[in-house]
């Protein structure tokens, strides 16, 4: 009995903290999402039901945000993980200047998102004075002038994905290079003696050995990409709906605090929809991983 009391006392700070800042808001969000016609000023509502969900799912802005988010997820997660894996493999195979390149690849991680956004503006934005560096390059090779920031949707989405990949890459490279370094070189020696082709060493030995780390990156990558928002703001400014580049989290924010905001019920419903999506995808990931990921 006494032991129990001590245990609960020890747990108390964590329980309080998690309860106030995690459980209570979650429950609150759920309740909000069911309250119809909520009025901010009077803090009152007219009824309960699923209307908020229906509204959100029929809102063209939300559909656009959903579409954008999915495109970003589907393009950036596999690409960033794949490219990071390639770079890590190269990094672990070179000997000279390895530390230097490792530092270079890690730099984006310690750089502020908005500062990076500014650099991307210079590269891609069309202004009164310049077409943007990339656009100028395209024109140099005879292409049309493209405005990547205020121009057509595919161009904007390209910059968006490019930017996201560039931002998330350093962390992945960091994790993967250390995962590669932890593979016992003895396995490679054994494989070399057995005349194993390089691609097969990678596919049959390296990849299974680092698969827990790759899996970790894929899961966190998915979750991170679904929660994308700040990167969009850095590139396209705060009025993402106007730019047609809003994301689900952006939609939630707009519903709360944006120009047309003040609708916590819609925001809550959208947040819970996002939660359901992330939960589903993560569950699928976990199921796939059971068959493909090898834990030592």
């Amino acid at each position, binding site marked *: 009995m006494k032991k129990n009391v001590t245990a609960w006392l020890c747990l108390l700070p964590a329980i309080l903290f998690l309860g106030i800042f995690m459980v209570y808001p979650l429950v609150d969000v759920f309740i909000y999402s069911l309250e119809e016609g909520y009025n901010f000023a009077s803090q009152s509502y007219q009824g309960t039901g699923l209307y908020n969900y229906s509204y959100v799912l029929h809102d063209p802005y939300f559909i656009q945000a959903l579409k954008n988010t999915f495109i970003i997820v589907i393009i950036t997660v596999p690409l960033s993980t794949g490219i990071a894996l390639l770079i890590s493999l190269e990094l672990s195979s070179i000997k000279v200047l390895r530390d230097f390149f490792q530092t270079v690849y890690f730099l984006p991680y310690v750089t502020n998102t908005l500062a990076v956004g500014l650099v991307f503006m210079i590269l891609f934005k069309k202004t009164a004075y310049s077409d943007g560096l990339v656009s100028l390059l395209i024109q140099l090779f005879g292409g049309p002038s493209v405005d990547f920031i205020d121009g057509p949707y595919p161009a904007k989405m390209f910059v968006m994905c490019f930017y996201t990949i560039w931002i998330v890459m350093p962390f992945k490279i960091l994790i993967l290079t250390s995962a590669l370094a932890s593979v016992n070189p003895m396995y490679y*020696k054994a494989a*070399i003696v057995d005349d194993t082709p390089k691609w097969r060493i990678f596919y049959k030995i390296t990849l299974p*050995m680092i698969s827990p780390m790759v899996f970790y990156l894929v899961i966190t990558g998915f979750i991170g990409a679904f929660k994308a928002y700040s990167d969009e703001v850095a590139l396209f400014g705060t009025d993402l709906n106007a730019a047609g580049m809003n994301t689900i989290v952006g939609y939630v924010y707009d519903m709360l605090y944006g120009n047309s905001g003040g609708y916590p019920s819609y925001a809550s419903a959208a947040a819970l929809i996002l939660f359901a999506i992330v939960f589903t995808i993560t569950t699928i990931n976990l199921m796939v991983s059971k068959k493909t990921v090898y834990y030592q």
Partner: protein
Amino acid sequence: MKIVLQHLTKRFPNRNKKIKEDVIAVNDFDFEIPDGKLIGLLGPSGCGKSTALNLICGLEKPTSGRIFFGDVDVTDLSPEHRGVGLVFQNYALYPHLTVRENIRFPLENLRGDKKLSKEVMEEKVLEAAKLVQIQELLDRKPNEMSGGQQQRVAIARALVKRPQVLLLDEPLSNLDARLRLQTREELKRIQLETGITTVFVTHDQEEAMSISDMIVVMKDGVLQQKGKPQDIYDEPENLFVASFLGTPQINVFKGKISGEKVFIGDAAVMDAKGIADKDVFVAVRPEGFVIDDNGSLECDFIAREVMGRDTSFIASHPSFVGENIRAIIPSEEVFDGKNRKVRFRLKPHKVRVFDGITNERIRL
């Protein structure tokens, strides 16, 4: 396939960059490994024996010298083209693959004309598994097996391609004492059954002695002696080889040759006809002592350890190099231990004399 090493030398740059001088891991190795034999490369840790193995395997390139497999110069061939099978000290089994997949792995690498069908592969895997007696373990993962079983899998994987040469790096050092005994006999059986020239590295002289057809003793990268285990044990060419081989260790005394007699302290223990006076080391195998009240070598008696068939006598002597003398005497020998003294007579053929400076053998 016989293996010929010609003046093989391997230097490494010193880890400590302040020291310009290279580390010589293998120094001018020059010997022939006969076809179809089991060879033990024996030496203390850090003596360069694993480097020697890596040179034969091709994982390391020699600084100078040549290596021949049969009549073919393989010095410049990479390991995959030499047709060797290698067993690593900690087995290097791929942990995510089953035993079957591990053994099949080298076969799946065959390309071009050598490519095998699935059926042939399975057949060869079974054959190799049968050879090392692990047929019933084929669907296990390495971490579900004991060290001895993993070792067998590693050997099967090395043998499945029927290499010309099988190389084993400390094959038994990760096994417990009982398994080690069992596995080394197994190793001998497999070698006899396949007839593949086999080289194994070990620091355990007993292991090398018990199964090798030939032992190569190394120290600090230099070959000390090579030959049949019993020959090396009986006729060591220098003090290092004498003290490295045999358990319990050979007993080494400081002594001198004077007037054609070998002395330990004041006791003349042997004749030394035609040898000039000089300081020497006198090394006596534990089984070379006979308790004899008229024996010339008087030692201080410390203890007696009865071990059934034999008795170990622990004694000390002022000229003894090291801790205590350990003599093995048949148990029926009577000894009363009075005065805490014991007198020994030495069996001449169990006594070897080495130069006090060069440590080379002096043949009496």
